[in-house]
């Protein structure tokens, strides 16, 4: 009675005029592949088509272990491009199937390692990375997994060696970006910028990787208070990857720094509307609060609570972020020390030290906090927020002049280091 002829067409969300796909071998294999789903379609066809090609291939040969391993990796890239974490369980299952078909497949083991990183299971990631290395030596990617895990576990010397190995084995945007991060941690922002610039010229292909690198470079400029160059990088990220929410988030910070709060709110809303990541939502809350819109701010903070419950239900351990958010916003202050302590146990990095120090300080335990704050700054990292925390702890201990020196240092480094705390620090110094 109905249908005579039907032609369904997939339509991309944004007209895909930017940067056609060209580099995926599977592209041609699946010209009619669905474009997949994502906050942005532009330039992600590569991975979407790769996924479709692999799926097609695995339909035909379901015993293909390497195919499942590659599919697992491609699903992780989709997660990165779309921001949709539900690709992770898919990746997990694909990689496990690969291992069932071919126990000891180094690619699959390494893939589980990078998956563990995404889920913040750093010890698992390290073990998996090392196992992958034993199974299939000298893979640059595996050194990346190992280095990332070591970094989050606070084992900096080993992590830096892994990054060096990675960069020597296969210089790439990923390797340069990791070297840049290491230099940033060591308190050498200019050298970090040099390495990230190199990453940028090397990241010539995937729009997502290019946009990511632009944003990271921008954040490096931002970290030393260079708002203009930072903003340029964020805008470049948007032109490389239309609608990239991390760039909107970063640009919101820029607008806030320039005192344009309503523009900042609008930008942050674009980020949240695309993908409500906790860091976007909490920043939106802070922006509303700065604007004086208490009701909207509270709404965002409530959403944070919802997100936290979902993340826990999904097995993602985000305690460090949760603890910092709680401490910053005076939520469950009493519990936050316990939370921070547990988070630090899972992630004994300088970030873990810093959050614990701050939680202790906010609970008035400044003696104890000082030790952790010193640990947090032991690499010489020039991070204004950590330096600010140290200053507040010193002041809390009655070391007024030392504390003020740290606050001044933080503000000199980056006058806009935090929507919440930079104005506070300025007020304290007046």
């Amino acid at each position, binding site marked *: 009675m109905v249908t005579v002829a039907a032609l369904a067409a997939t339509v991309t969300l944004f007209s895909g005029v930017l940067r056609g796909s060209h580099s995926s071998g599977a592209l041609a294999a699946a010209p009619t592949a669905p474009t997949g789903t994502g906050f942005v379609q532009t330039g992600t066809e590569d991975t979407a088509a790769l996924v479709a090609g692999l799926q097609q291939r695995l339909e035909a040969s379901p015993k293909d272990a390497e195919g499942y391993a590659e599919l697992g990796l491609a699903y992780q890239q989709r997660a990165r491009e779309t921001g949709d974490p539900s690709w992770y369980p898919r990746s997990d299952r694909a990689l496990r199937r690969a291992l069932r078909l071919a126990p000891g497949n180094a690619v699959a083991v390494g893939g589980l390692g990078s998956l563990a990183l995404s889920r913040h299971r750093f010890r698992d990631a390290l073990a998996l990375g090392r196992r992958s290395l034993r199974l299939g030596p000298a893979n640059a990617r595996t050194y990346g997994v190992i280095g990332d895990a070591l970094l989050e576990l606070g084992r900096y010397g080993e992590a830096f060696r892994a990054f060096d190995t990675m960069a020597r084995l296969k210089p790439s945007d990923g390797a340069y970006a990791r070297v840049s991060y290491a230099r940033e941690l060591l308190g050498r922002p200019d050298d970090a910028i040099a390495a990230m610039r190199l990453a940028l010229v090397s990241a010539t292909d995937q729009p997502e990787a290019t946009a990511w690198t632009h944003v990271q470079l921008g954040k490096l400029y931002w970290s030393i208070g260079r708002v203009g160059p930072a903003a340029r990088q964020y805008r470049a990220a948007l032109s490389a990857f239309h609608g990239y929410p991390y760039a909107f988030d970063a640009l919101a910070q820029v607008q806030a720094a320039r005192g344009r709060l309503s523009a900042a709110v609008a930008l942050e809303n674009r980020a949240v509307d695309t993908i409500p990541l906790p860091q976007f939502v909490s920043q939106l809350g802070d922006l509303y609060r700065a604007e004086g819109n208490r009701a909207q701010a509270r709404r965002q903070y409530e959403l944070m609570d919802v997100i936290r419950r979902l993340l826990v*239900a999904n097995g993602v351990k985000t305690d460090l972020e949760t603890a910092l958010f709680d401490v910053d916003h005076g939520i469950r202050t009493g519990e936050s020390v316990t939370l921070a302590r547990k988070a630090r146990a899972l992630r004994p990095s300088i970030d873990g030290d810093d959050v614990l120090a701050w939680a202790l300080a906010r609970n008035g335990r400044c003696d104890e906090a000082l030790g952790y704050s010193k640990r947090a700054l032991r690499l010489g990292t020039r991070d204004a927020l950590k330096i600010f925390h140290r200053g507040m702890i010193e002041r809390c201990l009655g070391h007024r002049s030392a504390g003020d020196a740290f606050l001044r240092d933080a503000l000199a480094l980056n006058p806009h280091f935090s929507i919440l705390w930079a104005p506070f620090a300025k007020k304290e110094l007046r």
Partner: protein
Amino acid sequence: MKRLIFLAVAVAALALPALASAHPLGNFTVNRFSRVEVSGPRLYVRYVLDMAEIPTFQAGRINPHAYARRIARNAHLSVDDRAAVLEPVRTELAHPRGAGGLRTTRLEVILAGPILHGRSSIAYRDDNYKNRIGWKEIVLGAGAPSTSHELRAYPKNLLQSPLDTTSIVAMLEPGSGRDVVPSLSSGASLQAPDRVADAGFASLVGRSHLSLFVILASLAAALFWGAAHALSPGHGKTIVTAYLVGQRGTPRHAALLGLIVTITHTLGVFALGLVTLALSQFIVPDRLYPWLNLASGALVVGIGASVFWGRWRHRRAHAHGHGHHHHHHGAEADTSFRSLLAVGISGGLLPCPSALVVLLAAISLHRVAFGLLLILAFSVGLALSITGIGLVAVLARRTFRRLSFEGPLVRLLPAASALVILAAGLAMTVRALPRVS
């Protein structure tokens, strides 16, 4: 209390390596489905909107008619190259339970299109929630199969990527029958769509077993954490101590108090769990908590006030100089039991959120009995701690008395403790008030 969540996760992980995907497309997807069909001469679009937990929360209270109108505005239909109007004629809204006991949204709308005069070429495009991640599906014809069963069961196949169809072009012929508005889903099919994509889920739960050791270890852990949890702030320690000190409690009272706390807490968790399940489409537990807070605050205020009033009268009686130093044993024990009950209830009424999460996780894993056991153990631990604190308070008071500090100061103690209870209750109430809205 956080640890209990980890326990729950760990327990779940025993049965299920990746509990992760309650919603196949993540917790912040907005999924859309359209079925373009003809009934008699008229074209209809059956539109289904499935919002995961986060967008549901962001949406706040949903007015289905306003949503239907907005959906109609962003669903573009043209018949023979001329734009046609879609008019919402029926809506149905439900909030099926999602991950972590949170609400999700399922909105179904029937959009009535124009009457078709003979074979027509139609073009339909769905522009709703353009930049949101999600499953986007369009099918043509009343009987055409939907890959996701109209957003009820997302494909379990590992090799299926989310669909991304947002427009359709087709030739349609009007039917010969009467123009009957298509019906919407109702009842269970509207309330509880199968959101679980993981094919291995059911089989894993069925297959794997919990060893006795794991069960015992988990119970012991739950007991311990319940006890530890009671020591964290905000669990009525102040009230219990103040009460027992003020009311000249005995060890028996302390034990009784523990029992009451256990029973109340266990029942509270179960009740809240049931309420959550039953009313999930109306109420988010999040919104229930402030009310519970308020209720226990009010209860504590009541207790404090009544005890204080009693003390006050008692003292006035003393002041009238009857020199009567014996207590009215019968009456006093009576009051004491009633207020004991009230204190216990106020201490246990507020269920610990993590206990609730354990229960909900257990239900979703079809391990209800195990979940109940865990919560019972948790509650017992909670009670042991509170009883212990109570005993310490009771013994301390006795020691003081043995040291014979009888005097006006000690006689003031009951009234002071009543004031402490009152203040604590007021604080709880005041803290709960702004969140209730």
